[in-house]
């Protein structure tokens, strides 16, 4: 009996008969994937060509939503704020992440502690960061104004609100980049440093000629992941400033959210979503191309 079963199973194990088991194993994932990814993805595109509310689809309008979009100053302002936020965060997050990784890697005895302190904020919920930031930035009783003197209302000041949110974001997420660089640093063979040290190289020279070139792939990864993450900013600004003061912190996704869920204009919100995806993909490709170009020029 047992032998008979096993020969059947062995037969089903042959390449030709693996279609059914594969389908069964994939079914739960595929169901979720189709329902919660594929269909909504196509629906976003379809909705962007319609006039729709949050509950109803009223009719096909062709490219009308896109025509409105290119002439909508609110959209361009929001996109501009998003770029400004990316500008304020991508470079500091990458540079500080690298510096932290080098410190963790160098001070072997303090490694666990240092890494823990730098990385911990990254695992905390966004609203823990925003609650603490809001308290620290209070105009009258906040610790920041106590240290700097004055009573600046950071989050209500049009020129300071977005930079303040950016600083909070750097504190919150830099740990991830540190981790990427740390992995990169640990992949550099120690012999390279030893050989260079025998030649009398040290400090900056070692960094310039060994560390930095060896970290190039990691730096590329970190920059791209960071750019995408920064373009997707929403929660921080929404919670801390609700897009204010005077819309100076209203970012693209915030505008999409308001359009969909406050104005109940799902069609136009879908057009904003499509434009947003296009921007994210274009900028990522541009950045990949730029990094490659610089690498080739240096080589």
């Amino acid at each position, binding site marked *: 009996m047992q032998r008979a*079963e*096993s*020969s*059947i*199973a*062995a037969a089903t194990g042959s390449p030709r008969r693996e*279609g059914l*088991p*594969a389908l069964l194993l*994939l079914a*739960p*994932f*595929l169901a*979720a994937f189709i329902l919660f*990814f594929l*269909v*909504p*993805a196509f*629906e976003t595109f379809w*909705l962007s060509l319609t006039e729709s509310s*949050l*509950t109803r689809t009223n009719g096909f309008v062709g490219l009308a939503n896109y025509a409105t979009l290119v002439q909508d100053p609110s959209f361009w302002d929001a996109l501009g704020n998003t770029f400004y936020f990316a500008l304020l965060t991508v470079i500091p997050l990458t540079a500080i992440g690298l*510096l932290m990784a080098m*410190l963790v890697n*160098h*001070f072997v005895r303090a490694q666990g502690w*240092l*890494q*823990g302190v*730098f*990385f*911990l*904020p990254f*695992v*905390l*919920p*966004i*609203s823990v960061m925003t*609650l*603490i930031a809001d*308290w*620290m930035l*209070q105009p009258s009783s906040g610790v920041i104004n*106590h240290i700097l003197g004055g009573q600046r209302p950071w989050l209500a000041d049009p020129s300071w609100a977005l930079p303040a949110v950016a600083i909070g974001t750097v*504190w919150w997420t830099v740990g991830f980049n540190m*981790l*990427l660089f740390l992995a990169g640093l640990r992949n550099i063979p120690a012999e390279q440093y030893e050989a260079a*040290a025998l030649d*009398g190289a*040290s*400090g900056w020279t070692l960094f310039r000629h060994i560390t930095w070139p060896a970290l190039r792939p990691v730096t590329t*990864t970190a920059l791209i992941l960071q750019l995408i993450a920064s373009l*997707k900013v*929403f*929660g921080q600004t929404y919670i801390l400033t609700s897009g204010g003061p005077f819309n100076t912190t209203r970012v693209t996704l915030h505008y999409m959210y308001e359009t969909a*869920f406050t104005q109940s204009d*799902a069609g136009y919100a*879908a057009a904003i979503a499509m434009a947003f*995806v296009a921007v994210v*993909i274009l900028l990522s490709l541009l950045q990949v191309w730029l990094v490659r170009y610089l690498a080739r020029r240096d080589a």
Partner: protein
Amino acid sequence: MNMSSAHKSNLGWSAVGAVCAIVLALLWAAPLLWALSTALRPELETVSADFHWLPQAWTLDAFRKTLAAGNLLRWLFNSALVALSVTVVTMAISLMAAYAFSQLRFRGKGILFALAMLAFLLPFEALLVPLFRTMNQLGMINSYAGIVLPQVVSPVVIYVFKQFFDEIPADFREAAVMDGAGPLRVLWSVYLPISGNIVWAMAIVTFIAAWNNFLWPFIIVTSTDMMTIPLGLTQTYDAFGVRYAQLMAAALLGAFPVALAYILFQKKVTQGFLAASGLK
């Protein structure tokens, strides 16, 4: 010839590095320590004109009042339930899918895998509007299923598991298949035991990500009772008023579970996040 000057210069760099390390560590620890120092003082001290780094009268009042005011425990419970469900379901369906993609031969495999990986490219944010409309039609607004289900599609996890399975020698599987074990059985008793490490790492990372997910619950939940911690903590001004000792106590209580998970499983968390970013 330069040994001694190189040595001296290295010492110099070490000193600069030590200063940098201490300053950065203080800067990064300060906000949480300041939150703790605030949460441990009476509410009056947070509005007093006198500034003190440490509480003048230490008290657990803020923590007590925050917990008594109600919703926090409910939000913690919701978060735990949601994060655990997301983790268990994601692990189960991703392991099965990864095994099929890695070990079984079937038609359309390449296209299907490429399609699944497409989800990497398209930000979840772009799906919010249709997802909300679908959930609305299904009557899943303000339900646990509604919060959990869209979070279980995780191509990254499948990708990591597939990479891992790809490197397991074929002999392992062939022996089991010869013994008559079906695919689910082979996955469970041959592949899972040797994948323990990576499965735990991805599970913890998935748990932390689900615990911290703000955007989706923000869209799908409107009732205070169904909120998770990241969402609930944004409602604390309504719940507690602008009382900073209590707000900081709430923030720390909301941070505690994930912070603890990180501190307990530091290595696994590190490994999981690195695997998920495509670097090992």
